[in-house]
């Protein structure tokens, strides 16, 4: 092998090792650093999917008339996909686009009494925008009404 070929080979090997290393790192990190998303139906009908204490995201519509605020920071509401509903407790500031009848995605854990304790309520840019997971959850429960996402 002439020196030029040697250099090319060395370069190719470095590239392969680096690429392989990066891929390995990515796969390894993807194993336990992802957040799962479940719909209220997943949570109520398939409780084995969501072990208590594990952080995940839940999404659906905020059930109309379910939002209860007290004088403190606590907020209680119910998230529904039209078929099933899960009560949510949250302490903190709600995003400006949080409204009854609108889509919502909450991040948190399920307590043993099947109440979801949210650590974060996610906001969106646009009031016309429905989070894709919520759309999907509503479609799966058969409550998705194309063109009129707010209606149940």
């Amino acid at each position, binding site marked *: 092998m002439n*020196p*030029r070929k040697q*250099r090319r080979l060395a*370069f190719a090997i*470095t*590239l392969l090792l*680096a*690429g392989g*290393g*990066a*891929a390995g*790192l*990515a796969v*390894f*990190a*993807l194993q336990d*650093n*992802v*957040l*799962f*998303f*479940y719909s209220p139906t997943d949570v109520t009908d398939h409780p084995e999917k969501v072990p208590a204490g594990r952080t995940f*995201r839940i999404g659906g519509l905020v059930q109309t008339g379910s939002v209860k*605020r*007290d*004088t*403190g*920071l606590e907020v209680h509401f119910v998230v529904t996909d039209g078929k099933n509903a899960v009560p949510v407790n949250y302490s*903190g*500031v*709600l*995003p*400006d*686009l949080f409204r009854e009848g609108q889509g919502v995605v909450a991040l948190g854990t399920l307590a043993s009494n099947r109440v979801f304790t949210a650590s974060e309520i*996610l*906001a*969106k*840019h*646009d*009031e016309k*925008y429905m*989070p*894709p*997971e919520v759309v*999907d959850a509503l479609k799966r429960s058969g409550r998705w009404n194309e063109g009129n996402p707010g209606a149940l």
Partner: protein
Amino acid sequence: MTGELGQLALCLALALSLVQAISGFVGASQNNIRLMAMGRGAALGSFVFIALAFFTLMFAYVTSDFSVLAVFQNSHTLKPLIYKISGVWGNHEGSMLLWILILGAYSAAIAMTQPGDGSEGTKLGARTLSVQALIAIAFIVFILLTSDPFERFYPPPFEGNGLNPLLQDPGLAFHPPLLYLGYVGLSAAFSFAAASLLESRNDAAWVRAARPFALMAWTALTLGIAAGSWWAYYTLGWGGFWFWDPVENASLMPWFVATALIHSMMATERTGAFKSWTLLLAITAFSFSLIGTFLVRSGVLNSVHAFANDPRRGFFILMILLVSITLPLILFAWRAPKLTPGAPFDVASRETGIMINNLLLTASAAITLTGTLYPLVLDAAEGIKITVGSPYYNATVVPLFVVLALIMPFGPIMLWRRGNLRAALYSLRFAGAAGLVVLLAVLAIVRPYSTLGVLAGGLGTWLIAGSITDLARRAGSWRRLFHLGAGAWSVALAHAGLGVVAFGVAGTGIWKSEGTEVLAPGKSMNVAAYELRLDSTERVQGPNYIADRANITVLTNGRPLTVIHPERRQYPVEQMTTSNSSIRTTVISDLYVVLSEPRDGGGWVVRAYVNPLAPFIWLGAVVMAFAGFIALGARIAARVRAARSAAAAGATEAAQ
């Protein structure tokens, strides 16, 4: 009338782009100077017509012409003028028009700067413009067929729907244009690379021509990302300065590759090293821009920044994306083996540094792409819905950047081809000591303990001190410091800027304090060393909103420091409420206060953060961008000088 004028202008721009594409290719292959000049003229003309279309749309917004559908959907007569103007690109159609406007501007810049004397450079420029024209054609057709910004609406209503209040922010005026100037600018490097491959030339002349454009694109991209990050920071609910959101990643991936590109171009231009790799990077960088455009515009990914997107249009961009990635890659696979190799270099050399830089940055881009697309793949394959957030990136991209920061100061200190590692280590001994001292200080003093925070403190100092070392070593004395070339300054500033960013990211990401309380007027809360007293709230009438404005006195040690006024605005037209935070900065830290919902009994939810070193994030980014401008400015100045002396030489010749 305006709508038809805009459409006509777009059609003319399309026709001129066709002329530009054909005359460039044919002119270059027949070595026909007049045809190639026609290609350059067509590029300028096409830009003028795109600009005409763009300003026609802007005119429709400013005059609230609701017979144009996009204006009706996104504007309102009561909207302040600045948001009527920036609202042009606050929606899908207008944003795509801005995209091709900037593409056209780069083509025009190429047309004006490339030689027209029939030399090899003329042919390269002509073919480059042809490739640019092909991209322009694809996107103008895309706009005309799927996203016509001038679509009519009849009968015209008296009032528009208004613009999403979250977008009624100065951020909209700066962030998208800068970002597009960055990632559309990468098309220039792409087109030069493709042109060079088409010419089957085996040298790196294209790099010399494309480097200023790549630098411009990198600089604008840096500023654009920084502006977006700053906007997301002061907007509550967007997850802070960086959220690893898919839309944010869409701009970061091209930045990683563009950073790799400007480094590898430097090596290719100087020593001829990495010739084929630089070609590949130029193609990849713009491909990442297209991937970004696709991800953002198609709405296939769940994002907090998703707005005004339409999956049906995604397909079209996906097709453009596939063609513009595949064709140049095939061309590359065919031609790259024929390239002449550059000068050999030792393991201890600047080239090696640049190689490691390129490997780490492209790996970062690949990892980010994996994390961004993985949810999509998993959903399609198994119907499982997941999100990949900061824990993933902290475990992958962050360690790569730790290694990158470790080697960065060596690059500028090592010589091209054969450097001396021991000498470099010796030069950097003070920088290393400074980094170590800060690392130990953070370890000993700052609580709570954080490994990443300790590393960021040490590495940030190492980068800044490394840059100072490099400048000092090159200058030798204070007086000569300011006679150093722009190259030395720009490298030192860009590297030091990243160190400054590291401080900001660590300070805010790791050591922020926060507090949320329900405050009745007259009551106080504490966050870090500050006491916040809600004195009162009042109703304020804005141009197109009504706000509750809080008067909050900030006290330290019981003494009033200042009064701040966070607001909660209600936009009646859009039926939306926004919380407008109030930030008091000391540069060393930010006090960030948000007025949130009212509660029964007259209380208000008030949320406050103290973000140590937050301004350093954007300060560092501005320093990096400034470094880009210096490098660019020096190149332009050198060109002007060369042109002048050539003209002078020509004049002397003529006189003889």
